């Protein structure tokens, strides 16, 4: 099969299929997956291992389709996934992209993403959980069910917890209706590992475990610039230096949530910028309205020692 893999794309796909050859290049292009992968590469900064895994999965799915066409057994692949990683590492964003890729390849029929947490699945009293979980599952049919912080479903300290009921229903549907929906579990790495240890049924039903690494400092700066550009803001050169320092400092402080922290910081910088312009009065041109200056960045509490130390004396920079 591999020798046909490198042949040039051609339009005569059905004829080739008839004589037992398939043009993988054409198959790949037809599926529109390359565009998605390119978009993923461009749209998401960093996350190299994640991108590679997604590329692998996408290739596997395309090959699965090719095998089907030539009458080889492919079987419905198990597509349930687990995304583990710290907060703000892009798990939800990637899940959304994953839903689109699976839709393009025809592994889910609608390609929508239903994002839920424990509250949406588990009821408050006996007999409440099953209908609630089933309701969500019905909504997710034909698409992707994304369960954020999935480990909260299982509470070992309370044996009467209704989470177990939701887990059982989930497992049953994950096994029996693999054609109808794909389940993606997400959460912090260590807690997900413990969750899988106590629910071996889950681990065995999930084919792809993808670990989302933390962003590098440089990547976070890049993300800040991209986010700012998307909102029509630019950083002054001094502000860029300040951002780099900000990222390095913020990482060491509690509740650091990668890209999400950067998003929040950016929101506050925009607030400060607005206030600065508002108070300075006078004329403001396009550049002034769109530029975030060094002062807007450096006014952050992060430079004053962080959230935990409001009275901390600012260090000399």
């Amino acid at each position, binding site marked *: 099969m591999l020798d046909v893999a490198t042949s040039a794309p051609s339009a005569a796909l059905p004829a080739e299929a008839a004589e037992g050859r398939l043009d993988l290049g054409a198959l790949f292009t037809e599926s529109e997956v390359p565009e998605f992968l390119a978009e993923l590469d461009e749209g998401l900064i960093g996350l190299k291992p994640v991108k590679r895994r997604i590329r692998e999965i996408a290739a596997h799915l395309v090959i699965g389709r090719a095998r089907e066409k030539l009458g080889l057994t492919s079987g419905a692949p198990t597509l349930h996934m687990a995304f583990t990683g710290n907060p703000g590492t892009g798990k939800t964003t990637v899940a959304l992209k994953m839903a689109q890729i699976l839709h393009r390849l025809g592994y889910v029929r*609608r390609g929508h993403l239903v994002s839920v947490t424990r509250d949406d699945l588990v009821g408050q009293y006996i007999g409440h959980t099953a209908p609630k979980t089933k309701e969500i599952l*019905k*909504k997710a*049919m034909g698409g992707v069910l994304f369960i954020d912080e999935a480990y909260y479903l299982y509470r070992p300290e309370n044996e009467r917890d209704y989470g177990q009921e939701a887990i059982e229903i989930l497992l049953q549907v994950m096994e029996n209706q693999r054609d109808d929906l794909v389940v993606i579990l997400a959460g912090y790495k260590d807690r997900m590992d413990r969750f899988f240890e106590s629910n071996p049924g889950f681990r065995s039903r999930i084919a792809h475990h993808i670990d989302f690494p933390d962003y590098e400092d440089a990547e976070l700066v890049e993300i800040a610039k991209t986010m700012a550009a998307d909102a029509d803001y630019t950083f002054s050169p001094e502000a860029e230096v300040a951002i780099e320092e900000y990222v390095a400092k913020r990482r060491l402080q509690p509740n650091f949530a990668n890209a999400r922290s950067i998003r929040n910081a950016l929101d506050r910088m925009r607030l400060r910028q607005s206030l600065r312009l508002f108070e300075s009065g006078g004329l403001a041109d396009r550049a002034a309205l769109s530029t975030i200056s060094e002062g807007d960045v450096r006014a952050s509490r992060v430079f004053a020692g962080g959230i935990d130390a409001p009275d901390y004396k600012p260090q000399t920079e």
Partner: protein
Amino acid sequence: MRITQGTFSFLPDLTAAQVKAQIQYALDQNWAVSVEYTDDPHPRNTYWEMWGLPMFDLRDAAGVYGEVEACRTAHPGKYVRVNAFDSNRGWETVRLSFIVQRPEKEDGFRLDRTEGPGRTQRYALQHRSYAAG
């Protein structure tokens, strides 16, 4: 006697794929789909028993079809129908309703004639499974 009410009732029974396709059409129109069952298919019996609540915000027929299957399993030998309700302003009515299960042997109806005061004749349609008793 084969009961003919709702859409497609003059056609042979719909296959699973056909039922799913109809449900998918209804969902694509943003209609809320519900499942109902009864043992009394009298034309005047508008309100059948509800199998769960109408299903809103669904995207794919698989969810609804699961409920159809569950209803069939729980009520073999009864009539089961699928309704699609259009909640858009200007409609707010059932746009599609079709039977997805019938009893193996359909009893049909019997015409009862009662004599009233004077020479009045009153006629009533009775479902045979009730009328037998």
